[in-house]
């Protein structure tokens, strides 16, 4: 029992442990996503990234909900649970907070995390449980064959909305920041290098790290992120955030981000502003205002001007740490079961 209770926040493997490679994380199960699905690229990137954690395979656990992306755990050789729709954060919370020696990851989709599981997502985030949440956002329901999702654009024509969706979409990262997130990042399925750097930052974060991954569903919502992927447009559309650097983008650096008159942020032409006016990206600011304003730069419908990278990364004690502190303080009291059963008011017969 003490192994479980006393173990501290997950550390790396013992120094003499064998070095793992990508191969060690590939399971023998046939991957059953549709050919051309963005999930393949994410799986491959995660498999190649996991060895760099230096954590033994048995101490890593992936928990997923329901949806195409939630098949993810079956394709890894770590511990894993494919649970029920929307509830992965709850199961992962129980696992993580009872087993601090584990590195616990949640794989979820836009329907799973933001629709049926929206409540669990925001509460896991606000508690800052030690979880790394990978939210595969393809802006559609794939597994149920093509209904609109909570991130689908307003007016989207789908099987369930032949005249267009009436739902205004969530911006998942705005939502996460509203839920007091301490780590918020975004990346794109096909950008292996960028995704790896974001995953590394997420893994190092104490508490909940939420990573939104734009993922193409080539069957029901093909090219949903074309604007951000197409070599001809992406330079002008993607705002690649770099910690400590002025936010400048565009093939020639012709766009930049400046403050707007309402205290938020807006895109401007670099040539038309003073260098000093260009906002320097700082993910570590205590206030969420900067990160939130960044999330609002993108157009909810077209994703025009979408920031990627780590938007926010701040320190706040994880739920796990706070719970452990209480457990430790309580353990100073003697655990005398016989005395507990007797209570304070007994009599003899």
């Amino acid at each position, binding site marked *: 029992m003490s192994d479980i209770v006393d173990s501290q926040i997950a550390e790396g493997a013992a120094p003499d442990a064998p070095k793992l490679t990508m191969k060690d994380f590939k399971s023998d199960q046939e991957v059953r996503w549709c050919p051309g699905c963005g999930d393949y690229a994410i799986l491959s990137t995660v498999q190649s990234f996991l060895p760099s954690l230096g954590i033994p395979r048995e*101490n890593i656990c992936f928990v997923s909900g329901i949806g195409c992306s939630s098949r993810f755990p079956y394709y890894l050789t770590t511990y894993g649970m494919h649970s*029920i729709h929307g509830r992965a954060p709850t199961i992962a919370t*129980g696992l993580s907070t*009872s087993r601090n*020696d584990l590195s616990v990851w949640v794989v979820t989709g836009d329907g799973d995390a933001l629709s049926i599981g929206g409540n669990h997502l925001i509460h896991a985030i606000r508690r800052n449980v030690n979880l790394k949440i990978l939210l595969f956002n393809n802006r559609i329901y794939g597994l149920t064959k093509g209904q609109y999702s909570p991130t689908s654009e307003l007016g989207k024509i789908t099987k369930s909305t032949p005249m267009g969706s009436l739902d205004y979409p969530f911006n998942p990262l705005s939502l996460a920041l509203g839920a007091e997130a301490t780590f918020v990042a975004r990346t794109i399925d096909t950008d292996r290098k960028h995704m790896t750097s974001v995953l590394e930052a997420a893994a190092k974060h104490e508490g909940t790290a939420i990573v939104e991954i734009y993922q193409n569903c080539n069957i029901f919502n093909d090219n949903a992120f074309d604007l951000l992927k197409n070599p001809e447009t992406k330079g002008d559309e993607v705002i690649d955030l770099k910690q400590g650097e002025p936010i400048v983008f565009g093939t020639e650096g012709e766009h930049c981000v400046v403050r707007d008159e309402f205290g938020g942020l807006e895109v401007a032409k670099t040539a038309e502003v003073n260098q000093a006016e260009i906002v320097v990206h700082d993910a570590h600011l205590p206030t969420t205002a900067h990160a939130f304003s960044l999330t609002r730069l993108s157009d909810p419908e077209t994703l025009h001007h979408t920031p990627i990278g780590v938007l926010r990364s701040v320190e706040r004690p994880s739920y796990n740490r706070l719970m452990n502190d209480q457990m430790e303080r*309580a353990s100073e009291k003697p655990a005398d079961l016989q005395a507990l059963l007797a209570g304070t008011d007994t*009599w003899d*017969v």
Partner: protein
Amino acid sequence: MAKETVQLDRVIIRFAGDSGDGMQLTGDQFTSETARFGNDLSTLPDFPAEIRAPAGTLPGVSAFQLHFADHDIMTPGDAPNVLVAMNPAALKANIGDVPRGADIIVNTDEFTSRAMTKVGYEQSPLEDDSLESYNVHPIALTSLTVEALKEFDLTKKEAERSKNMFSLGLLCWLYDRNIEGTETFLKEKFAKKPEILGANLAALHAGWNYGETTEDFSVRYEVKPAKLTHGKYRNISGNLALALGLVAASQRAGIPLYLGSYPITPASDLLHELSRHKEFGVRSFQAEDEIAAIGAAIGASYGGSLGVTTTSGPGVALKSEAIGLGVAIEIPLIVIDVQRGGPSTGLPTKTEQADLLQAMFGRNGEAPVAIIAPQSPADCFDAALEATRIATTYRTPVFLLSDGYLANGSEPWNIPDVDSLPDLTVEFTTEPNWTNEDGSKEFMPFARDPETLARPWAIPGTPGLEHRIGGIEKADITGHISYNPENHDKMVRLRQAKIDGIADSIPNLKVDDPSGEAKVLVLGWGSTYGPIGAACRRIRREGGQIAQAHLRHLNPFPKNLGEVLASYDKVIVPEMNLGQLALLLRGKFLVDIESYTQVSGMPFKAAQLEEAIKEVIANV
């Protein structure tokens, strides 16, 4: 003048007042004094769902009934010998249960015309003849209390609040109880408020002294201590016994307890109590909702903790899908349902047994789970240990069906010696459990123990046994995803066979049939044990023949149940629902069950069951 003392073998007292009058506290304290004195006892708190229901109204009446005796008793009693009515509403709401000749203590200060009109008394029941056949003691409890506290620097309103302590002091005098325990209790409770402490102590003493000096009470009563089995005793409620049982179970299992819970009446006390015992490695997690609560328990169980979720009926409805996941992934999980009146919000503070079929069938697909039920407040302790044994041995969700009556009711408990508790040691799988044809070893997450059909519990962190589980149907043995028709048929039957096989590990149902000549069996489950037992005693005392049996295990049933049912001409099953156990018994054993039901939110009365059983006996 020394007053006469009359010996009684048992007494039933009911305290009734506004929900803000402190009746539950008064009842609890009188109970504690009675327990310390050594009487056997049984209690029934009955209060509205509202925290402060509208003052002076019938729905706002809060009551606490205590039955204590010089012998072993089984129920909180049918009809009070003494009613303490703090206002007209309390009198009106309870008078129907009070037999003629009983004592009624009323707080005359509250019998104003406005208060009486509010509950429909056109004239004062204290002044007309309506209470003629009762022994009424009109006492100005409020003004006597205020008078007693005039030395204290309190407003009138603050002083009036101590009137429950005045009445407690009076009752303690009347029944020869000590008040030292209450004094200690008050000193702890108001340690930081010396003025309030002083006032409450003064009110308590004033009430006692009033009994001593007033001429209204010419006699005192004495109920001698009961002859209980030797041992160390405490008074315990069902919720407390259940919480302690879970802590003990986790200690005996050698794995930490992890509670995922969401506040819900009448189960919240389990969350409160378990949150206080972190020194035993208990982790308690108050989740955002019922689903998250069970999800966290499942996650913790997957990680090697004893995963528990505590709730009531509406919460079970929300957890259904997750319980199904627990069935599919075959992990230990304890689901505690403290049943209350339903459907929907129903009657949150009242008792009912109407979740049996929800526990049995309330999931999609064939999703069998084990179900057990405690039969008395103290028995909740043993039931927690049994739930743990089944969950960890068979790697299955287990329902424990308590109810509002057990949860809040209390009785003396012979505190067990910790070393005498069952050994529930859990062993995780740490090595590959399967030998391939070529002799190589492998881990198969769904290879089963041949005896129990349980699958291995291999927890994350165990090197070499990494595996994936989930709600999708799995192939037998390997646990890989499988849509194969034959495999699904096999897995459905295996899961059922595993639950059915639990019957091999449970004792046969014992029948209490002292003469061996009874033709009628009364069979119950859960909290009806007390009133059924009391009814049987009455019938036997009059020379009647009745056999009694009570089910701890509702799924699977004890192996001899069919045989037991078949050996009586008639079987009567009293339940606080519309016949849910009766339905299961008829379906499984094709026997004609006489179903006797009540869904009033209140437990059965012994007299009522006595009559119902006698009628069945008469017609055999």
